[in-house]
């Protein structure tokens, strides 16, 4: 990196960090550049990656040529993409106030497709597979071996079973959390809290490493103070 780009990157880095002290002009400039640059970045990416590469090239593909300029594979336009183009066009009708409501068709399509897809994907991956994973022989080390598990494995299996069961009870909405049911749900909350605590603890590590990366940039790449 040449001097200018290093200093520019360092300027912007410190500008964002200065927000920690308080909101100030340096941060505001960095923020404004960030918003502008990133919005533009996505406009450009979506235009080339999605609109051009997907739609344009899909509908008007070029023949694949070999080095001699002969056609090895004739282009096969994918006319299904026109549906996508139509949906996109409908979306853009927002710009015309009178018929802007037509963009709802396109939204309706997207929301419908998303609902259908997510319904099945989550039912299988999140519900069925996880339930199957919970149904285990508690006391055997491998399937069909009877009651030969070490006590550690047995405890582990039982804790997972109890945690999953009580946690699900907590998410049961149509019954007041009172009495035995309420106590079960409370155990479920305990498990949820342990889950949150553990993933928080685990996350701390990740967050710190990001900072290490940035400090490494400032002290190593920019100022050359560390190895």
């Amino acid at each position, binding site marked *: 990196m040449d001097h200018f780009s290093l200093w520019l990157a360092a300027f912007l880095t410190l500008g964002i960090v200065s927000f920690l002290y308080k909101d100030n002009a340096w941060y505001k400039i960095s923020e404004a550049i960030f918003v502008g640059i990133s919005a533009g970045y996505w406009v450009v990416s979506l235009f*080339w990656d999605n609109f051009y590469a*997907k739609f344009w090239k899909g509908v008007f593909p070029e023949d694949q040529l070999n080095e001699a300029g002969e056609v090895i594979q004739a282009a096969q336009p994918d006319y299904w993409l026109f549906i996508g183009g139509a949906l996109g066009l409908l979306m853009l009708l927002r710009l015309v106030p009178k018929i802007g409501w037509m963009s709802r068709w396109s939204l309706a399509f997207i929301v419908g497709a998303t609902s259908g897809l997510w319904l099945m994907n989550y039912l299988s991956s999140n519900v069925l597979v996880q339930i199957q994973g919970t149904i285990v022989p508690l006391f055997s080390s491998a399937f069909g071996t009877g009651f030969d598990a070490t006590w550690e494995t047995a405890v582990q299996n039982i804790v997972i079973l109890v945690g999953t069961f009580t946690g699900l009870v907590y998410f049961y909405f149509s019954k007041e959390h009172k009495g035995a049911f309420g106590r079960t749900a409370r155990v479920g909350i305990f498990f949820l809290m342990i889950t949150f605590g553990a993933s928080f603890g685990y996350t701390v590590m990740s967050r710190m490493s990001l900072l290490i990366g940035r400090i490494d940039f400032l002290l190593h790449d920019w100022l050359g103070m560390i190895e």
Partner: protein
Amino acid sequence: MRREVPLIITGIVGLGFVVQYFIPHFPFSKMNDWFTDWFSIVQACAIVLGALNLLKVSLEKVAAQKKDWGYAAVIIASFLLITIVGLVEGEGFRTPGTTFDWLYVNVYIPLSATMFSILAFFVASASYRAFRARNLEATLLLIAAFFVMIGRVPVGEMISGFMPEGWRLGNLASWIMNVPQAAGQRAIMIGIGLGIVATSLRIILGIERAHIGGGE
């Protein structure tokens, strides 16, 4: 027309995408792929609306010379700069050596990496403030966080080095992650799955219709 047509579209399309899961035969086998492509095309069109809105709001600020209008001008300038550069440079805008790539490496990356990294500070201040053993629930949260944090770093191994193999802090952290944590995670996942099933059905059946601007 304005309300009914979108409802019918949502219902039919939703049902179609449920059915495709079970039918390996063409054309159902292709629906998934098609939707991805279509969605990304719609996304590319829709961003025009967002970008114009950003420009409009910023321009209004500059025109009215509202407080901090100078920063709004910076937004407009940097947005136009990278957009024009990226569109002019063509399909290969990401190739190393282009102006777009220069902006990406020297402006975009430092900004987003730093914004990401200030999380480290927030994590520390949140732990200082929020993790108090106020009640049993909060205490469990705290204890789990504590053991995982200490067990996942070599310091934990040093402190508990005298313990027998399998009982050190690192093993305890792994146990918490693999057993109670995984159990809680599983309950959350199953709950989310069922929540999504119920919400999807509401949408497909047209009971939940806010997204298309329809009330009762």
